[in-house]
């Protein structure tokens, strides 16, 4: 890429990221609640509940600008890679990383793609439920979280509960209803020595659920 193109590219991403964060604030008044962890320069994997396309915008709006620049959301190639426009929005504007559920070669393996991002010193936002959740229950976690953590044990895993986003922008809608949102950041979760995959995923899921400020909600 030429120098000019590279500059344009970085500028596009900065403008998009600042613009989206400002918009997220204007619509949802989003505020971070640091409940067990603190903002930090450390390399992290933020894992969150997933109900809406707006989720990672809300989450990254809660990070500092420098953190945001080196934090990438993991998105499904099946959805975001479908057309050139979607791919442009996901990869070039939002600097997210696309992974495929139906990978064929070893380079396409989701874990190796995510590890290569971590190896550049960057942080990740992942949605371990694997899809936007339409139900009221948090879905069981996919095993990526476990595999990443055992491969890179020094990267912190931070559970992040995104509140209300399913009401702001439900799956299938494109206009957001302005409602107040919070993102609750919990204490880091790590794989304990000898802990097996299933037990760890269960524990990570419970750590995320514990952050829901309104657990007795009945809707």
């Amino acid at each position, binding site marked *: 890429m030429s120098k000019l193109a590279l500059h344009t590219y970085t500028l596009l991403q900065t403008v998009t990221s600042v613009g989206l964060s400002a918009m997220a604030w204007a619509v949802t008044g989003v505020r971070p609640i640091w409940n067990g962890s603190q903002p930090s320069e450390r390399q992290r994997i933020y894992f969150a509940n997933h109900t809406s396309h707006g989720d990672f915008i809300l989450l990254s709006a809660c990070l500092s600008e420098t953190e945001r620049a080196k934090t990438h959301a993991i998105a499904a190639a099946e959805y975001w890679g479908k057309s050139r426009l979607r791919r442009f929005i996901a990869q070039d504007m939002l600097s997210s990383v696309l992974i495929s559920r139906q990978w064929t070669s070893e380079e396409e393996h989701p874990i190796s793609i995510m590890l290569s991002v971590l190896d550049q010193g960057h942080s990740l936002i992942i949605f371990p439920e694997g899809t936007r959740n339409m139900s009221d229950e948090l879905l069981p976690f996919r095993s990526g979280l476990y595999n990443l953590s055992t491969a890179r044990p020094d990267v912190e895993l931070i559970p992040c509960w995104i509140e209300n986003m399913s009401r702001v922008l439900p799956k299938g809608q494109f206009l957001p209803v302005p409602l*107040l949102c919070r993102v609750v950041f919990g204490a880091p979760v790590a794989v304990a020595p000898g802990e097996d995959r299933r037990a760890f995923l269960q524990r990570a899921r419970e750590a995320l659920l514990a952050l829901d400020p309104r657990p007795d909600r009945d809707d």
Partner: protein
Amino acid sequence: MRHEISILIIGLFVVLSTASVTAGILSMRAPKPLSATLVNLTQRINAWWVMVALMTVAFFFGRYGMTILFAFISFAALREFVTLTHSRRSDHWVLLGMFGIVIPFQYWLVWTAWYGLFVIFIPVYCFLLMPAITALHGDTERFLERVSAQQWAIMISVYCVSHVPALLTLNVPGFEGRNLLLIAFLIIVVQGSDVLQYIFGKLFGKHRFSPNVSPSKTWEGLIGGLVASSLLGALLSFITPFSPLEASGVAFVACTMGFLGGLVASAIKRDQGVKDWGHLIEGHGGMLDRTDSLVFAAPIFFHLVRYFWTV
């Protein structure tokens, strides 16, 4: 009108400065770390500076400033109300309409002074059409609760709030071109009453007014606040079309409504299990925490003035 506005601005400046200095002295003398009440007091006073500054700016932009400012207040209030109450996925379009259609249309009616539609658009048309849309969606789960919450949300946050800028549309003989001062009078008296009730309550409060709804409201605070704000109303009669006696009467009615507004807002918050509506205004809570009294006072004040003072 310039004369009256200058006096108001100087008056507010003196009151806020006195409050800031008093809070500063109290904080200096108090044992460290400061008590929560004192920290909160300082935050509240600082937020008052910002709110008064914003109101003053909007004031100088006249009809434009007031209409836009209160449309935004409605937006913030509605957002808090809807966030707090129950809704379902199928309510998405109704909720969008409340923000995207009801607010702009109601304020357009204020702007064009179309009184006939202004007073009935929400209580008649929205009241009937919103549940109709919800029913058409076919989702009957907790139907009445959802529909009531939506209707209350726009009544409180949009309909009631819009009566403040609507004061500009009233035609009071001999008071032409000075209607902005009616807004100033209403806001100063009602918000002043909140502050005075708070002060009287903190100083003399013993007997709780309604322990089940709002533990912080006391009889002493209520009576002291209402008497003092009626006097404040009489004192401010020079900016109104009212005589001093009338001004104190109108202030008394508005502040009583304001008190009831705070009480109802507390009951809703208690029912929903929260202490504040939001976090928009440091030390005060959300927009509705600050405007709950104005919300109840504005329509009554509007109609009192309209009935007794306009042609």
